């Protein structure tokens, strides 16, 4: 895993370097100072940071042979990762509304490539985490609870986003509210089912090792975002047109 993460450093390193090389080179707008919203991205950064904390707490729970605690924090990590992705969907949608797409200018191309690849990594991480949570659930009651909780959570998430951003036409208004309420009910009932005492895990060390590897990947995604947040958002947020074009 560490070898893979080392190669991933080079992958993201090249994307970040490309962003920096083309920084301030766009010949037409929108420019970063017109559309980047640092306070909102700070919240999503905080969410991803907290997901990393949840991840280590999950591993800690499994290593101490407390599967319920480990599963709770694993699901919490996946939930926080999904919230981060929702922020990204919101941001991409807002940028598209403002006229910035990957085709618009160099800023759009490099920005969407970099943050898009990062978002794809986060999505993969969420899937891995959900699979791990499924592995920790042994009885049928727990598996049903997990399916209901995860399905309910994503139903609420998608309904909220669809209604707010108006990106999925059939889901605007009443259908979104119905799906949201049903999803919330499924989430609560699934959570109730998951509160059952899980069957004892016999192969603790294998489970802990699997979760540890998933966790390493998740933390890597977090450290990549730490760099992206600083370089793309905080340092470049006030970038305008190139000097020759300014004014």
């Amino acid at each position, binding site marked *: 895993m*560490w*070898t893979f*993460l*080392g*190669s*991933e*450093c*080079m992958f*993201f*390193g*090249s994307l*970040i*370097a*490309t962003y*920096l*090389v083309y920084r301030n080179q766009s010949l037409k707008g929108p420019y970063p100072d017109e559309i980047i919203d*640092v*306070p909102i991205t*700070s919240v999503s*950064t*905080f969410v991803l*940071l*907290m997901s*990393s*904390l949840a*991840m*280590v*707490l999950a591993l*800690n729970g499994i*290593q*101490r042979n407390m599967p319920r605690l480990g599963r709770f924090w694993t699901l919490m990590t996946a939930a926080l990762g999904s919230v981060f992705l929702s922020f990204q969907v919101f941001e991409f949608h807002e940028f598209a509304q403002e006229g910035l797409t990957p085709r618009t200018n160099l800023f759009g191309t490099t920005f969407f490539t970099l943050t898009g690849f990062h978002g794809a990594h986060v999505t993969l991480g969420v899937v891995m985490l959900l699979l791990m949570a499924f592995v920790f659930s042994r009885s049928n009651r727990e598996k049903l609870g997990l399916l209901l909780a995860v399905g309910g959570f994503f139903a609420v998430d998608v309904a909220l986003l669809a209604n707010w951003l108006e990106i999925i036409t059939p889901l605007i208004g009443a259908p979104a509210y119905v799906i949201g309420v049903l999803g919330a009910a499924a989430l609560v009932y699934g959570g109730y089912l998951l509160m059952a005492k899980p069957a004892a895990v016999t192969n603790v060390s294998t489970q802990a090792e699997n979760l540890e590897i998933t*966790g*390493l990947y998740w*933390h*890597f995604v*977090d*450290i990549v975002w*730490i*760099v992206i*947040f*600083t370089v793309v958002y*905080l*340092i470049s*947020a006030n970038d305008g047109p190139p000097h020759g074009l300014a004014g």
Partner: protein
Amino acid sequence: MPDTTHGKSERPRGLAGLFWQSSDRYFQLPKTYAETPSPTVKYENPLGRTVDRLGRLWVRLSSGDRHPTARFYWTVGIVLSVITALELWAYNWPFARVLVNPILLALSAVKFVMVIGFFMHLRFDHPLFRALFGFGLILAIAMSLSLLLLFFKLNG
């Protein structure tokens, strides 16, 4: 830190001797309880006892046995959140704007190292893992800097 392993070296003379530890490593904190020295061992340098106490406090906070405790992780999480808030504060800092970018990069580097060291527990792991990841990281930084230098040179 007191001698717990070999006890081979002798205290050097002069300034170097002031902070000398017989493990040949200056101020290196223990990583696990297994490395925590017995309190009865004689300390060899003027700050030895203090440094060792701090080291053992750190270990107590960070290592239950081999792995850090949940409390330690919460502490790291809170520190990371505070650093993120500091970054936001530095971003909005109205004075000496020329200093802002270096401050932001430094804070980001601190967060980066903390997540790798504590959350990815590289600090507690085998040095081989550190080498594997470090190799990729150094290569990535070198590649990025080369690319930036090349393009800035081409663009004058």
